């Protein structure tokens, strides 16, 4: 195996990486450092983020990113190699992408406490929960984010109903796609429906401009639904 012959490609946009010359800013955590490989589009992933766990990548990225489009945040996070095609890590992606977009719009008070609460609750949704419990962790993410930003508890009236309704609608949207499970499609559905819901029910405008179609994750998914999935293809 000759390391020098290897070609590397940008995890954000897929272009071939070039040898770095000078300082670059990490597309995930925002840190500046001397770049070894850099993308022609200026994407760069720092050494710390390349070795980071899924939880660390999601947390540090959402702390620093200024993006207001939750779909764009989710796409960036899911392109990171620490986020597997399938698995409970995707639940946190859905939750933090929504929460970060809400924070960045400036219309909702979102701080460390909100992030911690969401992580703690969503973390209880294990991998494979969709098939075994009949509840996808992404729907739990949508319900949790709504609950946290509205301050809902089991004693609440309207706030509790809102959390239940967003979770229910999201679940219905995920179920409509069919199986086997695709955690990426579940994240896309969740973010789209949650953004619409938050705008309509709480008057918090969450704009989505990034289009997850065609799905860039399809080639990594052995069980891709292909034409049965609304995000597949051109």
């Amino acid at each position, binding site marked *: *195996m000759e*390391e020098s012959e290897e070609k590397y490609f940008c995890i954000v946009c897929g272009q071939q990486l070039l040898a770095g010359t000078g300082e670059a800013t990490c597309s995930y955590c925002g840190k500046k450092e001397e770049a*070894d490989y850099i993308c022609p589009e200026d994407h760069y992933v720092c*050494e710390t983020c390349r*070795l*980071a766990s899924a939880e660390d990548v999601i947390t540090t990225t959402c702390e620093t990113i200024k993006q207001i489009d939750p779909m764009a945040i989710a796409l960036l996070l899911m392109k*990171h*190699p*620490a986020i597997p095609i399938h698995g409970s890590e995707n639940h946190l992606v859905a939750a933090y992408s929504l929460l970060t977009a809400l924070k960045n719009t400036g219309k909702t008070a979102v701080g460390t406490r909100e992030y911690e609460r969401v992580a703690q609750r969503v973390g209880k949704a294990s991998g494979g929960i969709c098939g075994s419990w009949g509840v996808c962790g992404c729907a739990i993410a949508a319900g949790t984010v709504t609950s946290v930003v509205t301050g809902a508890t089991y004693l609440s009236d309207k706030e509790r109903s809102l959390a239940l309704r967003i979770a229910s609608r999201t679940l219905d949207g995920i179920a409509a796609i069919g199986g086997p499970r695709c955690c990426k499609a579940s994240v896309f559905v969740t973010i789209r429906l949650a953004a619409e819901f938050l705008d309509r029910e709480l008057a918090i405008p969450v704009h989505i401009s990034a289009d997850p179609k065609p799905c860039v994750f399809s080639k990594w998914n052995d069980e891709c639904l292909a034409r049965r999935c609304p995000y597949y293809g051109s």
Partner: protein
Amino acid sequence: MGLEGNWRLLDFETEDPRMSLAVGESVFRNKKAGLSPDTLYLWRTVKPVILFPPGSRRELPESAKKGGVESLRTLAVAGHASFCDSGNINFSIALDSRTLNPLIEGEYQPLRSEYRFLMDAFTEGLRGLGMEIKAKPDGIYTEVGNEIATSQPAWLSDILLFQGTVYVSTELKNIRFPPGRAVTSLTAELGRSLLPEEIIGILIQGFERKLNVTLEKSRLTGTERKLAEKLYDCKYSTDKWHFEGKAPFLSLTGETLVALYVANPPTSKCRQLIDRVNKAASSLMDEVKVVAWRRGLGTEQNPAELTPPVLVALAKANILPAVIINGEVKFALEVPSENILRAAIHNPDRFPDLSKSLHGLRR
């Protein structure tokens, strides 16, 4: 090789069933590496044995175990345990399963269609004996559901290893299978004495007819023989494999496999590790294969090599960089010196396997 499209009837005889299993796996691996033709290998054992796929231990015929019959673990992902003596014809088919696609008729069921088709290839010949039998994915059955052949499949992406046995004149009267499983023999069903030698030709003819191929008899290639001997030494002759299911995770063609789990693109630490491992292995290049697995790129990044199963655990535990030698994690989150790496590659057993303590490594 010029072997594409040809089918080989393997000409190899041994009295040791462990060697027959090693030969089957060697051909399978070489087929995956593009070094072997599609192959049918028919073999027999003088000594009675139980051949069991992983997960079927509880099915092992108790009576046979008590009688001191050896239990040998096969390379398989499914199937039932089988009892084999000199009255059996055992088979080991290694083929590119894609070649079966145009031949499979009716509704296609992934895996099951391939298994049933191959069982049907043997059924085709056996029906000529005047028997009413039916091919199923896991064996061949008589009209009343008695099992007359058993299959045990294994896969390396599209390459299928389909092993099993046909009960010709097997001494089954003292063998009690678990409830619900009735095994019979051709001799018992037909009520006349049959010799395996008579049946071999019938199986071959049925196979050729069903697959529309001509089997050409030939021996193992040099690489197949070398790998079979290595698999025999480090796997099929060991109790560790047959009792615990453990064997060195060698490269596809049998070299010591040094797999590196690194970032994508590699960090400076990862590059340093790759460089040191390459230097440490440089004096052993014919016996060692170094393969880098970059996180997040899936199995397709090294299609010509086997993926160590422990990579999944490393990814989940976020342990990188790591050095995996013959399937065991030897170094994690560190860059050992070239000398230490060389020692580990020479003598992997002297270094502990960290696989069981991955989550503790991050603390």
